[in-house]
C-alpha cells in the first residue's frame, strides 16, 4: 500500500494528487501494459528459449542496447554543452538553435530517417566525405547510432535547460572567487545540482532509443546479424502473424528497459536523499 511515511510537510493536496496520478496512469498505461504482461507470462517457455538461443535475435538485442547507450552518451555530453551554451552563453542566432532543438521530435521518425540517409549515404552530402576514409555511415551500425543520437537530442537539452536556468549562481561565484578552476567548479558545484536532470535526460534518451523504429529502418540497412534492431524483429514477427514471438520479444525488451529506468531512478533518489541528509 502506498501511504505517506511521515507527514514531512503539512502541504495539502497529497490525496487528490496521488489519486489522480494513479488513476490516469492505470487507465492509460498500467492496464494496457499489464495485459501484455499477462499475455507474455501465459506463453509457453519454449517460445522464450527459442528466442534466446537464436543468434540473430541475440545480435539484434546487442546492437540495440549498445547503440542506444552510445547515442545517449553522446547526447549527454553534447546535449549538456548545447544546453549550457543556450542558457549561459547566448550569441546572435542562438535563439534559432534553441528553436531547432525540437526538430527531431516534430518530424515523423520516418522523415528523419530518410533525411539522415540522404546525408550519410555514400553519394550524400556528408557520406561522400566519409567514404574516402573508408567510413561507412549509412547501412552500418554507425548509421544506427547517428539516427538514435538525432532522435534523443531534445530529451537531454530540454531536460537540462530548466535546471541550468535555475542554478543558484552564488556558490559558483563563491567558488570562483576562492580560486577554483573552471573544471573544479563544474565538478563540485554545477554537476551536483544538475545531476538529477542529467540522469533524467540520459535515461529518456536511452529509453527512447531502445524503442526507435521509424528512423532506424531507413538508415541501418536491416542486415540480419549486423544492423538489425529489435523493433524490426518484433514488427517482422507481427507481419507474419507470429504473435507469440512478438509478444515474447516485446516483453523481454520492455522488461530490460524498465529495469534500466528503475535503476536510474533509484540512483537519483539515492543521491537526493544523501543531499538532504548532508545538507
Amino acid at each position, binding site marked *: 500500500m502506498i501511504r505517506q511515511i511521515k507527514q514531512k510537510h503539512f502541504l495539502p493536496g497529497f490525496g487528490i494528487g496521488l489519486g489522480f496520478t494513479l488513476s490516469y496512469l492505470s487507465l492509460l498505461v498500467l492496464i494496457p501494459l499489464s495485459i501484455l504482461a499477462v499475455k507474455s507470462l501465459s506463453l509457453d517457455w519454449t517460445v522464450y528459449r527459442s528466442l534466446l538461443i537464436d543468434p540473430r535475435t541475440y545480435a539484434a538485442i546487442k546492437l540495440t542496447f549498445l547503440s542506444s547507450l552510445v547515442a545517449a552518451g553522446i547526447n549527454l555530453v553534447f546535449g549538456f*554543452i548545447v544546453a549550457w551554451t543556450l542558457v549561459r552563453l547566448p550569441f546572435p542566432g542562438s535563439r534559432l538553435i534553441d528553436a531547432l532543438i525540437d526538430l527531431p521530435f516534430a518530424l515523423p521518425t520516418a522523415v528523419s530517417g530518410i533525411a539522415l540517409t540522404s546525408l550519410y549515404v555514400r553519394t550524400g552530402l556528408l557520406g561522400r566525405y566519409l567514404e574516402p576514409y573508408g567510413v561507412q555511415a549509412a547501412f552500418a551500425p554507425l548509421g544506427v547510432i547517428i539516427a538514435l543520437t538525432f532522435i534523443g537530442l531534445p530529451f537531454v537539452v530540454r531536460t537540462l535547460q530548466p535546471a541550468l536556468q535555475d542554478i543558484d549562481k552564488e556558490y559558483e561565484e563563491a567558488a570562483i572567487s576562492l580560486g577554483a578552476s573552471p573544471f573544479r567548479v563544474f565538478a563540485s558545484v554545477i554537476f551536483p545540482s544538475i545531476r538529477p536532470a542529467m540522469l533524467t535526460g540520459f535515461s529518456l534518451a536511452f529509453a527512447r532509443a531502445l524503442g526507435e523504429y521509424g528512423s532506424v529502418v531507413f538508415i541501418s540497412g536491416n542486415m540480419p546479424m549486423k544492423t538489425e534492431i529489435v523493433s524490426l524483429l518484433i514488427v517482422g514477427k507481427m507481419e507474419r502473424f507470429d504473435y507469440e514471438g512478438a509478444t515474447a520479444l516485446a516483453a523481454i525488451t520492455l522488461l530490460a528497459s524498465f529495469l534500466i529506468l528503475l535503476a536510474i531512478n533509484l540512483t537519483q533518489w539515492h543521491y537526493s536523499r544523501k543531499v538532504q541528509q548532508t545538507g
Partner: protein
Amino acid sequence: MDTDMRSSMQRLIQFFMRCITITFVVLFLVLPLYVILSEATGEGMSVFFRAVTHQETLQALTLTICTLFIILPLNILFGIAAAWTLTKYEFRGKSVLSALIDLPFSVPPVIAGFILILFLGRHGTLGFLLEKLDTQIIFAAPAVIVATLFVTFPFVARELVPLMQEQGVDEEQAAVSLGASAFQTFFHVTLPNIKWALFYGIILSTARAMGEFGAVSVVSGHIRGKTITLPLHIEILYNEYNFTAAFAVSSLLVTLAMSTLVVKEIVYWRSGKKQTRPTGGFLESPETPDL
C-alpha cells in the same frame, strides 16, 4: 596576472563551447533540415504550395491539430498532478511510481500500438464491451488520440520533476502556514516557479504529438480522408514516389515546431521584466544581455 590568465582561459572555454554547439547543431539538425527544405522546394514553390494546400493534406492537418487540442490539456493536468505528488511528499513506492511514469518512453511506439490493440481491439480485453456499444475506438479517430496520449504521456511530468525537486517545498510550506489553500498555493507560489519547465513540457508534447508515426500507424487503420494524420500522409506521399510533396508536408511540420519559437518569445516578452538574472557567473559572458 592570475585573473588575466583565468579570464582568458574562461574566454577560450566559452569559445570552444560555442563552437562545439554550432558544429553539433549544424551536423545533426541543420543539415537534415536543409535536406528536407531543399527537397520540398526542389521543383519550385508552386509545387510546394500545391502539395501543402491539397485537400488530403488539409484533412490530415485538421486531424493532427484536433488531436493536439485534446491531448494537451490532459497532459498538462496529469503532468502537474504527477510532478506535484512526486516532489512535494515523501511516501513509500515513490521511485517505483516515478519509473512507472517513464514507462511509456521505453515502450517502442509500434509495441504501444500493439498493446492498445490488445486492450481495445476486437479480440481485446474491452473488445466485447465496445462491440456491444457499437463504438469503434481502434482504427478510428479516437485511437489516434489514445495512441498519442500514450506516447506523450510522461513529457510534462518529466520536465517538471527535476526542477520541482530542486526547488523543494519551503515556499509552499510558507504559503500554507500563512493560511493559503492548496490551489492558491499552487497558482501563486508553485506555478510561477515552474512555468518554464511546464512550457518546455508542453512544447515537447506538442512536437511529439504532431510527429508521432509508429503508434498511430498501428492503430489508425490508414483510412484515407478519415484517420490519416500528417505523418501518415507523408508516408503515403513518399510511397507514391511523390517525394516533393512528402517533403513539403514535412516542412509544414517543421514550421509548426519552429512556431514554438514565436510563442516562447511572446511568453518571454510578457514575463521578461520580472525575470532578472545575475550575470558574471561561471563561464558566462558578461556582455550578454538578458534573454
